[in-house]
Every structure is written in C-alpha cells, then in structure tokens.
C-alpha cells in the first residue's frame, strides 16, 4: 500500500500539481480582483495544446537553443528525485541538498545560454537580470539549507526537512520559512521580483528569456518552471508538516501546495513589483535573514 501510494504520488506531483498550482495562483488573483478568472486547469490545457504544435526556430539559433528546454526540464526532474515529497526521497545521501540547489543552477545556465543564442537584445536583458538576481538568491537558499542542516545534523534533504520539535527550533523555523518564501518568489519569477503577467518585454525577466521558444519547447519550459515552483513549495510545506503515513502525507502535501499557491496569489494581489534596482536589496535582506537564522542555530 505504501509503495503504491509512493509510486502514484510522483505522477500526481510532477505532472498534475505544477499546472494546478499555477492555475490556483491565477484564480486567487482573479477572485481578489473581483473577476471570475480562467479555469484552474487552464495551464494544463495550454501545455497540452503547445505539445501538439510544430516548432519554429530562429535562423540565428544553433543547437544551444534546442538544448535549453530539454536540459532545464531534465534537471528539475532529477532534482525531484532528491526532494522529500509525499514520502522519503528516491535518492538520499549526505550532501544531496547542495546537488538539489545546483541542479536548478544547471537549468538556469542552459536557459540563459539558450536566450543568448537568439541574439535578441531583449532576451540578453532578461538573461542579465536573471543571473544577477539568482546569484544573490543562491546564497540565501544555501545558507538556509545550512541552518537546517546544522539543526538536523546532516546535509541531507530528507533529514533537514523532517519534523523537528522543541521550542528553540521555532525561531529558526520562522526565519527559514521567511527566507525560503522570498527565495521561492525570486527563483520562480513572481511578484515582487518579476511579474509573470507583464506584457512589456522591457520589464520582464524570466518571460523575456523564452520569447522565441514555441510549441513543445515552450511546453517543456513552462512545465519545468511549474515543477520548480512545486518542489520549492513542497520543501516549505514539509518543514511544517508532522510525520504521517504516506497516503495522509500525500494529501496534506497537496493541500499544503494549494495553500502556498493561494499565499503567492495573495502576495501578488496585494503588492506591486519592486523597481529593478530595488530587487538586490530585497535579496540581500533575505541573505541577512538566512545568516541570522544560521547564527541562531549555531549558537
């Protein structure tokens, strides 16, 4: 029974949860704004439609452009094998947290290279912003991982995100949750760092990097971005969930993912994106919070 649940959990989390989470965010924003909004499954319909289309490639591009979508999706798929989702992760060893973070870096590397391959000024601009902001988000993420690792005694995601009791852990957990949420917003190009709904190329970050991708390539990219959002949200959820049997764990994880989606939707409805030059300040604040959390754990 446990095995069946675990086996079933992966297709649900990796194939279904990403579009549903994105749909929930859009729905929340629409409801807050007093609109009806598109159906929750709209991102899934979009992906299926894109998969059925042919491909158009710019004559400027080379194999690098075609490499970007597949490697970034493959990287997040492999990262999902390391993350504790509905149960224990598929692969777990001391130091897997670093690999997890760097697999996202691999995805970023190929996405940025594919964007630069088009020779478009706008895509260069987006790539430049992406690497600038993510190079500040990465220390925040890894310092957060460090404080969790010290608390649990091992640099292993399964241990780090296992339930942890004790009053001394509470302050650390709150700081970790806060930092992880900021990193999640920054890495997944949400408000206040990036606005996924903007229609002006000049103001985009992630969207503008994939302007020239279409058809199955775009579907791969969108789905990969969705999985990244799901994985990072799942870590947040696992941090507050108690130990429970697999079926309940899957249910509560999915419920938790929904809550994170609604939270992101509420954040996006309640504030505007910050100016580009202010984004580094936000991320440095996250680094400071992470360092403070680490110091608190090490004390």
């Amino acid at each position, binding site marked *: 029974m446990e095995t069946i649940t675990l086996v079933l959990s992966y297709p649900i989390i990796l194939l279904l949860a990403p579009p549903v989470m994105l749909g929930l965010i859009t729905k929340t924003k629409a409801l807050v704004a007093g609109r009806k909004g598109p159906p929750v499954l709209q991102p899934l319909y979009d992906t299926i439609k894109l998969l059925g289309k042919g491909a158009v490639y710019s004559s400027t*591009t080379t194999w690098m452009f075609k490499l970007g979508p597949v490697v970034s999706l493959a990287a997040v798929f492999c990262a999902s094998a*390391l993350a504790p989702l509905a149960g224990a992760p598929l692969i777990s060893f001391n*130091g897997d947290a670093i690999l997890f973070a760097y*697999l996202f*870096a691999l995805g970023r590397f190929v996405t940025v290279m594919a964007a630069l391959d088009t020779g478009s*000024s706008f895509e260069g601009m987006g790539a430049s912003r992406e*690497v*600038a902001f993510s190079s500040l988000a990465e220390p925040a993420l890894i310092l957060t991982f460090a404080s969790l690792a010290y608390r649990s005694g091992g640099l292993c995601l399964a241990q780090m995100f296992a339930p942890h009791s004790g009053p001394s852990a509470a302050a650390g957990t709150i700081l970790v949750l806060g930092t992880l949420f900021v990193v999640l917003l920054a890495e997944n190009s949400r408000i206040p760092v990036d606005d996924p709904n903007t229609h002006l190329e000049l103001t985009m970050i992630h969207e503008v990097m994939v302007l020239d991708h279409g058809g199955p390539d775009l579907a791969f990219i969108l789905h990969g971005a969705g999985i990244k959002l799901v994985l990072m949200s799942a870590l947040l959820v696992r941090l507050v969930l108690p130990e429970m049997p697999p079926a309940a764990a899957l249910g509560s994880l999915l419920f938790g993912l929904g809550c994170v989606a609604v939270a992101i939707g509420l954040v996006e409805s309640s504030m505007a994106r910050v100016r580009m030059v202010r984004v580094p300040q936000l991320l440095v604040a996250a680094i400071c919070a992470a360092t403070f959390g680490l110091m608190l754990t090490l004390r």
Partner: protein
Amino acid sequence: MFLILSISILLAGAAASALTARKPGLSSAIFNISLVLGCLAGFAAIMAGGLEQASAPGFIQAWSLPSASLSFSLDALSSFSLLIILGVCLAAGIYGEAYIKASRSLSRIKSIRPLFLLMTASLSVVVCAQNAILFLFAWELMALATFFLVIVEDEHPQVRRAGFLYFICTHTGTLALLVLFAILGRAAGTLDFAGIRAVMPPTDGLSALLLLLAFIGFGMKAGFAPLHIWLQEAHPACPSHVSAVMSGVVIKMGIYGFLRLIWLLRGVPDFWAIVLVLAGAVSGIGGVLFALGQHDLKRLLAYHSVENIGIIALGLGLGCLGLSHHRPELALLGFSGAILHTLNHALFKSLLFLGSGAFQHALGTRNIEAGGGLLKTMPWTSALSLLAAAAISGIPPFNGFVSEWLVYLASFSTATVGEGRLAAVSIGALALIGGLALACFTKAYGALCLGVPRTEAARTARDPKPAMLVPMAALAALCVFIGLWPGPVLRLVVEAAALVCGLPPETAALSLAGTVSGARLVGAIGAGVILTGAFLVFLRRLLVAGRLSSGATWGCGFTAPTARFQYTASSYAMPLTRVFSPILGFKTEASSPDGYWPADASFTSHSPDRVLDGFLHPLGSALVNLLARFKRRQSGRLQYHMLYVAIFLLLILGWKL
C-alpha cells in the same frame, strides 16, 4: 627510475631544441618527441609508484652544495601533482606546436620550445624534490622559465610591464621561501624533507612567522588576494598554451607548497585555518567580481584563477581546522576538496585558455565584444569551451561541481568543532562564488559564441587545425569523466589527503567512504540528467513530427535588426557590477550624443585592479615623489659625495664615542 628518465628526457629535449632552434622543423620534431616521451616516462613512474603502494624508495645522490642532496621520490601527493603537471603540459605542448605554426609572430621566436620543456621539467622536479635546496633550485628555475615565456612577445610595452611585475612578485616570494626553509632547517638541523618531518619540534612560537612567510612565498605564486597582482597582467601577456600551463599548473605549485609545508609541520595551529579561510573567501569573491568587469578574455580568465584559488584555499583552511582540532574526517574532507579542485581547475582552466588562443587567432583580438556567433563558425572550439565554462561554473554533471561539493561538505562539518563563524563565511562565500561565476561565464560565452557575429572577423572565423582541437577534446573528456564517474580520481585524491594529514590511506578511505559513495551518486544523477535530456529530445522529435520551420528572432516588431542591437557583455554584467560597485570601483567614461545632428558618442568602462592600480601604483609614485627630494642632494659632483662620506664617518665615530 622512470622519474629520473622523464626529467632527463625533458631536459635533454630542452637543450636539443635550443641547439637546433635555427631549423624550426627539426626543433619542432625534437620538441614533440621529447615532450611525449618525457610525459610517458613520468606517467610510468606514477603507475609504478602506485603499484608499490608505499612511497617509492626514490633516488638520492649527493650534491656538492652544502646540506643539499639530489633526492627525488614520489609519494601520494607528489604523484598526484605530477599527474596534473604532465597531463596539462602534454596537452598544452601539443596544442602549442600547432599554435606557434599558425601565428606568424610566434613562429619567429625560437625560445618558446626549449623554455616550455624546461618549465615542464622544473615543475616536475618541484613536486618530486625531497630536499629544500633542490626544491628552491627547481622553484627558481620554474620562475625563470615562466618569466622568459611571459616576455616572448617583448615588442609590446604591456608585455614587458607584465613580465617585470611577474619577476618582482616571484622573487619576493622566493625570498620569503628562503627564509622559511632557513628557519625550518635551523629548527630541525637538516634540510631533507623527511628529516625535517621526523625531527621537527612543535613550532608554536614560530608558527605565526612561518604562516606569514608561506603566505607570501606560496600565496604569491598561487595568487591569493591581495597578492594576486601579477596574475591578471602575466596571463594575458604570454602565448595561450603557456597561459594554460601558468594558470593550470604553475599557480598550483603554491597550493602544493602549502600542502607540503603542512605535511612537514605535522600539525598547524588554529589561526592558520582562520587566515586561509578568510583569504579564500576574499580571493574567491574578489576574483569573480573583478572577472565580471573585464572585457579581455584572458584577463577575465586570469581573475577566475584567483577565484578558483580562493575555493582551493577554503578547502585548505578547513583541512587545517580539522588538523588543529584533531578531527581527521574534517581534515580529510577539506584537503580532498582542495586537492581535487586543484586537478579540476587545471583541466577546465587550461582548456579555456587553449580555447581563448583559438578565439584570439580567429578574431585578432582578445576583446569578447568583438565576437558573437562563433558557435556557428567555430563549432568545435566553441562546443569544447562550453563544457569548460559549465565545469568552471560548478554545475553538475561536470567535475567542478564534485570538488565544490566536497568543500561544501567540509564547511558543514566545521560546525562539529564549534567554529560556526568560519562555517558561515565559507558556505556564504561558496554560494556567492557559484552564482557569480555562472553570471560571468554566461556573459563571456554569450558574447563570444552566441548570437550574431559583431565583426567581420567573427563572421569569417574558422576552427583551428585538429592538432589544436584534439588536446582540447582530451581535456574536455576528462572534465566530463570526472563529473560523471568521480570514484577513481577520488581514490587518488583521498590518498594524497591522507598523506598530508599523516594518516594511513586505508583509514582515510574508510573514514571518507560515505562521502565517496555520495560522490558516485552525484555522478549517477548527472548521468540521469543526460539520459532524461536524451529522452526529452526524442519525445520532442516525436511531437514535432517534422513540422519544423525557420524564422527571424522576434525583435518586438522591429523588422531590420543589426548585430549591434545585441546586448553587449558590459550591459549584461551591469546589474551586478552596479550592485558591487563599492568593491569594484567600476569606472565609466561616456560622451553622450548632443545637438540635433549628433556626430560622435562613445562609452567605455573598465574596472582597474584594486590592489595593483588602486593601491600599489599610488603608493609607488608617492614613494618616488618623496625620494625625488633627496635626488637634489645627488648633484653628481665628487666633492659633495666625499663630503657625505666624511660626515657619515664622523657621525659613526661620534656614536661610537
């Protein structure tokens, strides 16, 4: 015995190719044969040493110099370093032959071949020497050979300037090393390494002085900030295959020196660790930030050497921390990370320098803004450079990630000895370095190889000859191999680290068994990414089913874009250089277009080196100005000078009374 054979072949080859320098064909043949044979003999020596397990008996011969002996031997650390030296020198030498022939200015210079062989031989002696005098002799020979290789194109003033700077720096370092070994020899009563290690008394009182001397002597060579000042000047000055060896191997001799010194002292105090970790963090972050501000490809790569030396120094520092706290596991992790990163950096950095040579020949300049679209016109060079760029950014599934991962693990183990602050510094620094290195290499690679050609030279560029591509391909294959299957290399690395810690190799292997199996899983997941990617490519082909069409890049409605519309490397790096401008001191000069019919407008930006251009040059000119006042007393008249002598003598007489 193979070791002596290898060094003799290399030295004989150097002499023979120098004698036949007037006949380039013969000299080239001698160079190739002696390089290949010398390296093969060296590899045989390493294999033989590995088979015997224990350190090979070595070769000892008396030498007429006082307290010197010609003693060579290959222990685990020496053989690992020798492997790096011979591997990189072999690849760079073969590449270099084709590179010299392809360049009209270089093919006229006769000294490159003998000097290159001399450099290879002296590097091998440095790591095999078991006597301080022999070590210093080889160290000096290496410094001189590389100095003459730096100034081969001495018709350019900046090359002469770089050579002079390198000369000053390397000799300052050697001076510090002379004092260092004099102190060690005095304390131990012998200059043989084995003897020093056997009888060395605890050096508590002296260890601060020893660290200072080692930091100047070895740190200057390795390029620890703020002693890195010669690197970014000397690396661009020499021919590319020499830059590859300089950056890949020569600066690693500083790291080797540190490891050897730790081995000699058998234990280090706590503050060594603090100094090394801080130096590593400063070098790492500083190096990558200054790299972000560069447009000259080789200068950018030189700053990245500072960055990678920083990562190695972090590993060294954490290893020292483990030694001083008697935590063998931490010591082994730290030293293993440092040693493996030494190899990895040697591989991908020499590959990048070899690539930069091909790009420089094709474009006629080292400015990355002059490139663009080279992935189409120079497919092989660009593809191989892409692997190196990914590896140096520390991205799985390449080798750079494996060693950075080890240093991360060492940093996390630091908490067990209660050094939380050092752990936080080292983890934060590693994470920041990783992100910034990715930014810097996407910048350089994007500007050079991707997009549309910005110049005519880039449009007509062609791949170099296979003789230049094959060595690059070999280095790239090693980068991928270590990334996917780190097991075999890690075994050698752990042996070398065990030697530095003074542990038996079996104990070390046992205590790092978990880490090694973790590294295997890292490699396996890397392979998983590749397989998943291949599956997705197949899936995409099925889905698209031949419905392919081609169009122009979306220009937001503008239909006649030119190559100059592309984002430049400077603008790409701008968000980061602006954030870090207090550190970088980024300078821009712009004349904006004005009037109704603007004629000229220009924009230039550059980031001068903070230590060299920001501190040492002003300090130097201030000193010169100060001393110029005394120049007036130097009238050149004999009478005055005799008066000075008389006054001086009188003063001494008065003082004695």
